[in-house]
């Protein structure tokens, strides 16, 4: 399915918004998990003072925190590649878009040919507008 530039833009904005909402929820959930953890009664062992408390929401706090940290890091890495590295690569590709290619077959043909020894065309250069970069349009 080919998407036009406007649709791609809408999808990008939707994806970034969804990530932002998820990030806000994860931060809230991490704080709320820790608050809930402290709402649970805390018990201490008679011998040794070992603490016992329902630990489900503490585990949830760490999971939320881990994802809340991972999302901005992931988004940072992605934006680095999409908005910084990619334009640089595209610019470099555009600068070297006019590539000069040596056509060796023409030279060989000239060397082995019994044709008249008039001014031989030993080398032939072909100018192409071929883009050597494997990068695709980012849209």
């Amino acid at each position: 399915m080919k998407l036009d530039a406007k649709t791609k833009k809408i999808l990008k904005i939707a994806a970034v918004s969804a990530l932002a909402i998820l990030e806000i929820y994860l931060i809230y959930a991490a704080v709320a998990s820790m608050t809930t953890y402290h709402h649970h009664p805390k018990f201490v062992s008679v011998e040794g003072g070992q603490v016992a408390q329902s630990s489900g929401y503490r585990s949830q706090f760490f999971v939320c925190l881990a994802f809340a940290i991972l999302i901005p890091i992931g988004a940072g890495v992605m934006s680095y590649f999409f908005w910084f590295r990619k334009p640089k690569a595209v610019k470099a590709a555009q600068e070297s878009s006019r590539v000069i290619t040596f056509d060796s077959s023409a030279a060989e043909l000239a060397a082995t040919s019994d044709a008249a020894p008039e001014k031989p065309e030993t080398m032939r250069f072909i100018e192409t507008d071929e883009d050597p970069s494997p990068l695709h349009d980012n849209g």
Partner: protein
Amino acid sequence: MFDIIDGMKKIMSIFITTLLACMCLVGCGGVVSDRDLHDADADPSLNPAIALVTLYSTGERGKVEPGLIACGHAYTSIENISGASIILGKGYELPAGGTVTIASWEFDAHSGVWFNIEPTYIDQGWFVKRKSITRKADKAAIDRINAYLRNGDTDKWTLTNNCTHFASRLWNAAADGERDDVKVKGLPSNLEKEVMRFKGYETARPHKSDLPIGYFSGDKFIEFKLEK
């Protein structure tokens, strides 16, 4: 552009319809009390009852902050109605007239079976809408409960062996064959509905207990007190 908006509208309508259908199926269905608890006193084949076994379950949020997943809790209590002490599990002594709650908890000190945790929770305002059913248990039923409690796999809390599984299985161990059995469900809210299928189920049945709080590490009871 209009195609995309139409497509999104279609997706949204399908999503909302599915969500409403799921809500109707899962959450909004009324519970019909269509089961009778077995009357142990009227059954001459049973020995005299020595204890009352109660199965509690609630799907309420308690003090869980809004926006978080809250599953509720399920547990059992055993009340000694005989004139002598009853030994439960690996050696918990239940004196005559005493009541103890037994549940599986995921605690940082021990993930498994805990004794008498729930009275503290109830004192602090948790599980106020708990639903429960109670049946009499004779010595044979207590022996079956003890066999279940002494099983090595019982004393481990996991997501697939949580408080609901534990409470249901303990009740079923005491239950008389299939007559009072409850289906082993995954969440306390499901078990609560199962409990409400029994005629005469109770809401917020009181149980106070000053008996020791703790768990068994091997055969040794590790006692805990509420931190003030």
